[in-house]
């Protein structure tokens, strides 16, 4: 082994050790746990019970579906909100750019739980938002926002918005204004130039942002916990209760593995489709 190679391996060592301890070993444990049988009192034994996967899929299909739907809608909403925001910060904000960026990440200064609890108050039954919506008859007199899918999606959108905004900002900020001048010069109106130049060039940001939003959102359980009901529960809530409340480790582990595999497959298909590897 040459000295150079040895240095490279040495430099990789801490990361490798970290991944082994906190990713590889837990994953193996998780898979093995999903194939065990038994009970909390008598202990679990590895029996290779693959049937558990079909079982949990059948039992918790609605929660899986909701997870994908809520996360998908939240990602879409975050994209719609974050794109104009990132565009403005990157291309139009001038000297306010840094201040606005700080404001985007400002929510991180408080805890995730506290922020979600704040939404519980904002959407609460006797507060301004609900009152206003009742007044304009968007909601019935006894209609509510809290404990609805809408509240859960709102919470998800809000909590993951910075993860959408920052990658979008990063890719829009790199945009060369001279390309837009060239597009204008070549008979593209401002809107066409956006459609044909700005947006395609920001695709790496769109892909990055949607992944960073969608992946944590699918597995989230906090938002349902505070803003939803059992009727809106997502797969994260099931896993949490199986693991911590019921103590049904094999089912919880199987659900976790399914969720992980689903996300990996979806991400792979998505990245292929978006063709990011062809983008500069």
């Amino acid at each position, binding site marked *: 082994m040459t000295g150079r190679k040895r240095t490279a391996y040495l430099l990789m060592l801490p990361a490798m050790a970290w991944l082994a301890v906190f990713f590889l070993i837990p994953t193996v444990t998780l898979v093995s746990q999903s194939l065990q049988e038994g009970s909390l009192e008598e202990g679990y034994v590895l029996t290779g019970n693959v049937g558990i996967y079909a079982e949990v899929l059948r039992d918790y299909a609605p929660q899986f579906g909701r997870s994908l739907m809520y996360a998908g809608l939240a990602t879409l909403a975050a994209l719609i909100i974050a794109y104009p925001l990132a565009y403005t910060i990157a291309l139009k904000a001038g000297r306010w750019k840094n201040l606005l960026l700080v404001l985007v990440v400002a929510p991180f200064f408080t805890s995730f739980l506290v922020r979600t609890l704040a939404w519980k108050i904002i959407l609460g039954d006797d507060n301004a938002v609900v009152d206003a919506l009742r007044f304009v008859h968007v909601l019935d007199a006894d209609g509510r926002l809290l404990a609805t899918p809408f509240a859960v999606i709102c919470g998800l959108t809000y909590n993951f918005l910075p993860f959408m905004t920052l990658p979008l900002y990063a890719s829009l900020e790199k945009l060369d204004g001279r390309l837009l*001048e060239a597009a*204008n010069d070549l008979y593209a109106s401002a809107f066409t130039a956006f459609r044909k130049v700005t947006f395609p060039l920001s695709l790496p940001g769109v892909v990055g942002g949607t992944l960073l939003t969608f992946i944590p959102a699918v597995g989230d359980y906090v938002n349902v916990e505070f803003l939803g009901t059992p009727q809106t529960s997502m797969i994260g809530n099931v896993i949490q209760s199986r693991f911590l409340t019921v103590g049904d480790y094999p089912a919880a582990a199987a659900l976790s593995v399914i969720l992980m595999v689903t996300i990996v497959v979806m991400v792979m298909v998505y990245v292929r489709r978006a063709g990011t590897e062809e983008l*500069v």
Partner: protein
Amino acid sequence: MRTTGSADQGDLRLVEVTKRFGPMIAVDDLTLTVPAGSFFALLGPSGCGKTTTLRMVGGLERPTQGRVHLGDVDITDRKPYQRPVNTVFQSYALFPHLDVHENVAFGLRRRGAKDVPAKVHEALAMVELADLARRKPAQLSGGQQQRVALARALVNRPQVLLLDEPLGALDLKLRRQMQLELKRIQTEVGLSFVHVTHDQEEAMTMADTIAVMNAGRVEQLGGPTELYETPATVFVANFLGQSNLLAAGVSGRSGGDLLLDVAGSRVVLPSARSRCTTDRVFVGVRPEKLHVLAAADAAGRAAVAEGHNTVSGVVTDASFVGVSTQYVVRVPWGQDLTVFAQNLRSDDRFRPGDEVVLHWAAGNAFGLDGDEDPDAGRIIDPELEPVAVPDNGAVSKSVP
């Protein structure tokens, strides 16, 4: 320049155009006509307003005052995408996410043109890039990118093609090649080209008409030969090539000639070649128009042609450049004159310290207003500055 009667149909006219950026005046009351079908160069140092002028024609800047006309149409208020004008940008500004073919097709597609692939292919063939149609811009060399940018603009057959220092990023050899290429293409397609450059050689090689710009104004407008042989201002004389400017006073007239006094020496200049109406004149002589003789040979005046002006001096520097030798000659009143002498013989060169006589035909000089700043427009390039005079009289080493 076009000779057909319809030429003025597509003339580009700037009328009293001024552009201010805050307190800074970039273009100052500029009036200019670019005849249809001509290759027109805007030449000047950086910051002279030439690029701003180009951007106002393209619609990327709006004039603070004045109008821009193309043929009979006032295009001042039109958006860039509503003008029959295309630009080859200095940075090329190729779309990185589109391949060469799609870059070139961009303008055609926006206007819903027919036969896009055929037209794109034709344009790429013209710049000899048909083979690379499916490459991305990042996979091309600088020269190839430049040609894509050219094809992308030309394919739209604009009435006026604007070129914003398109050759600036290329190395010298490629630049020369592209200059000839551009000129060929312009002749071939017959469009008006407006070419912005700070490279006087580039402007002279390609353009039919050159407007020399300085501080937002046109100093002089004319053909390359005219500008070079009879510059109107000190700025033009210094910016376009090099000039030796001798401060002189008018001491009399004789027929069509001005009799001048240059620090005691009598110098003749045809009055038709002088722009100056006062008594203070700069006599301008280009370095290649000065002949050098050894003082001993010139003493009999046998070698000095009839009607030539003479000045004696001492060689202080000699730089051998191959085809020519560049001498710096100090004349009695302390001024250093630059001389380019062709190396016609391989054994006949002067060394620093040699006493020489410089002479030039009266009709090869030009006269300028003696009240101007003699350094206006001089390009400060340390490599062109004469090196210190060596005491031992050896030929100084010039930059290879």
